[in-house]
C-alpha cells in the first residue's frame, strides 16, 4: 500500500517552526506513535529518535510495509524499554515521508508539493519539532531520550540544547558530527538520485512513471553497504552465486550479494521518498555539535551535567566507529556529566543496533530502567 493512503496519527504544530537555515516552516505536521501509558506525574516518558530511513513505527505492525516495527525487539511489555513502565513516544522527523512535513507535503503557498522548495533542515530542527510535540502532549521532562545513528544525533542535540528536559540520554552507534567520509557517502547517494532523469529537479510528484526510483535504489544500495561490515557480508554471502552453478559472463546479478543489494534498493523505493532522502542526509551532513563552540564539544554539554549519558558503539561499525563515541565521552567527562560508555562486540557493522546483540539489550534495559 502506498504511504500516501495511510492515515498516520498527526499533530499540527500551533506555531511556525523557526529553522536553523533562517526560514519559518508552516504549517508543520508531526506524525507520531506512542506505546504504554503516561503516568499521572507525567514523568515516565521516553522519546525514541529514529535513524535516517526509520519512522515512528517502533513496535507493532508497520502500516505501510506490513513488517514488525524497526525496534520491535527492544520496545514492548517486558522488553528492555519496557512499555509496562514507560510511555514511549516516537515521531517521524520533519523532512521525512511517513506523515510528518517534508518535501512531499503540500506547500500552502502554491498548493503543490514542496519538492526542493522545502527548506533545508537540520538535526536541531528535527529536535525543535519534537520539543513542540512534547509541549503539546504536556510532557515537560523526558525520563530518557534514546536513539541510534541519526537518532543518536537527535539524542545528543536534545541533551545539549534542552538539558533541563532530559533525564538520561542513550546514544547508540552515533557521532557528534558527520565526518568527511560520512558526507562523502551521502553525496554519492544524493548524486545517484539527482542523476536519475525521473528526479526532474525534485518535481516528480504525480508524474507519470513515478519518481527517481532507480536513483533512490542505487543510493540505498551504496548506503546499505556502509551499514554492514566486511566480515558480515562475507559470512552472509561470501562469493556465493545466486541461483546458478556458474558465472554467466554477463552483468546479471551473478552473486548473492548483488541480488541482495538490488532487492534492498528496490524494496526501499516502495516506502521512501527520494527528496526526503536528500533532505535528511543533508541534515546529517550539517550536524556538528561542536561547531558553534569553536570546535570545543565539551562546551556544547556545559549545561548538561544533570543528564546521565550512556554511549554505545560496536566493534565492526566503521560508519560511526568507536572513536566517534570516545570523542563524545571525552567531552562529557570534561564537562563533568555522568557518563557511561561501552564498545560492544558485534560483527553486524553499523546495523548492529537494530539486530540481535544481547549485551545491548542488557545495557539499554539497565541504563533506561534502573532506579526509575
Amino acid at each position, binding site marked *: 500500500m502506498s504511504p500516501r493512503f495511510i492515515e498516520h496519527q498527526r499533530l499540527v504544530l500551533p506555531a511556525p517552526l523557526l529553522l536553523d537555515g533562517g526560514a519559518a516552516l508552516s504549517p508543520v505536521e508531526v506524525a507520531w506513535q506512542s506505546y504504554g501509558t503516561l503516568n499521572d506525574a507525567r514523568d515516565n516518558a521516553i522519546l525514541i529518535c529514529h535513524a535516517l530511513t526509520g519512522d515512528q513505527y517502533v513496535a507493532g505492525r508497520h502500516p505501510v510495509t506490513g513488517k514488525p516495527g524497526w525496534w520491535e525487539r527492544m520496545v514492548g511489555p517486558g522488553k528492555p524499554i519496557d512499555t509496562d513502565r514507560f510511555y514511549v513516544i516516537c515521531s517521524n522527523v520533519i523532512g521525512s515521508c511517513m506523515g510528518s512535513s517534508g518535501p512531499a507535503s503540500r506547500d500552502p503557498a502554491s498548493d503543490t508539493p514542496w519538492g526542493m522548495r522545502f527548506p533545508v533542515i537540520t538535526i536541531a530542527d528535527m529536535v525543535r519539532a519534537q520539543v513542540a510535540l512534547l509541549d503539546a502532549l504536556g510532557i515537560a521532562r523526558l525520563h530518557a531520550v534514546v536513539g541510534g545513528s541519526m537518532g543518536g544525533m537527535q539524542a545528543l542535540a536534545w541533551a545539549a540544547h534542552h538539558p533541563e528536559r532530559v533525564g538520561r540520554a542513550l546514544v547508540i552507534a552515533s557521532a557528534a558530527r558527520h565526518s568527511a567520509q560520512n558526507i562523502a557517502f551521502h553525496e554519492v547517494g544524493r548524486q545517484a538520485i539527482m542523476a536519475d532523469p525521473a528526479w526532474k529537479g525534485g518535481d516528480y510528484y504525480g508524474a507519470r512513471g513515478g519518481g527517481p526510483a532507480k536513483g533512490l535504489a542505487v543510493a540505498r544500495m551504496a548506503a546499505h553497504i556502509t551499514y554492514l561490515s566486511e566480515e558480515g557480508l562475507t559470512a552472509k554471502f561470501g562469493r556465493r552465486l545466486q541461483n546458478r552453478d556458474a558465472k554467466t559472463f554477463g552483468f546479471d546479478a551473478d552473486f548473492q550479494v548483488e541480488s541482495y543489494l538490488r532487492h534492498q534498493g528496490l524494496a526501499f523505493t516502495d516506502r521512501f521518498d527520494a527528496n526526503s532522502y536528500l533532505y535528511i542526509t543533508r541534515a546529517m551532513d550539517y550536524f556538528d555539535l561542536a561547531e558553534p563552540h569553536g570546535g570545543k564539544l565539551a562546551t556544547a554539554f556545559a549545561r548538561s551535567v544533570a543528564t*546521565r*549519558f*550512556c554511549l554505545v558503539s560496536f566493534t565492526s561499525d566503521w560508519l560511526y566507529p568507536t572513536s566517534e563515541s*570516545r570523542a563524545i*565521552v*571525552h567531552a562529557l*567527562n*570534561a564537562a*563533568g556529566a*555522568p*557518563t*557511561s*560508555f*561501552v*564498545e*560492544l*562486540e558485534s560483527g553486524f557493522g553499523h546495523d548492529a543496533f537494530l539486530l540481535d546483540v544481547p*549485551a545491548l539489550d*542488557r*545495557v539499554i*534495559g*539497565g*541504563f533506561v530502567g*534502573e*532506579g526509575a
Partner: protein
Amino acid sequence: MSELRPDLAVIAAHVAAGSRVLDVGCGDGTLMAALRDKGCDARGLELDPANVAAAVSRGLSVVQGDCNVDLTDYPADSFDYVILSQTLQTTMRPDRVVEQLLRIGQRAFVSFPNFAHWRVRLSLLWGGRMPVTRLLPVAWYETPNIHHVTVDDFRALLAERGIEVEGSWFLTGDRPTSAAAANFRAEHAVFLLKR
C-alpha cells in the same frame, strides 16, 4: 558493605561521604555502589565490556577504557579521589599511572598485592618457581600482573616522586597487619596518596 573485598572495604571506609570519586578498574561496580550509598558521585573506568554492562545496568556511570591510555582523557583536578585497586601491578607503566591518578584527583587510593609477603618469598626461595598464591593465583605465563611490586618498592617510588602518603593499611586476609613489618607480613597494601 559486608561483601566488599577487604582492601575495598578499607577504601570505602576512608572515602569522605559526598565526595567525587573515580574508580579506575571498577569491575562490575561493587565499590562504586557502596560509595554511592555514602552519597558520593562515583564514576568508573573499566576494561572489560561485560563488567561495564553489568555496572551500567546497576545505574552506575562507567566508561569502557584502558587505564594505560585513557586516563589522559580526564581533566586535571576533576575528582576528590581516584581509586586504583589491585590494578597497579597490571599496568604497562605503574609510575605514570600513579602520576595520572594524582593529576586527576586530589587524592588517590592505590591497593596492590605485596610481592614480598613471606609466603611469596618462601615459595620463590624454596620452590625456585614463580609463586602462585591465593592473591596471585595465575601462573607466570598468563598472569595479568606484569609489574610485581612490594610494599617497600612502592614506598621508594613515592619517596622518589615526592608523593605524600596520607594513610596506609596492610592486610593479611581480611585482618590488618602492622605497618612496621608490612613488607614481610602484609598480603596486600592500601595507600592513600596526596599530591
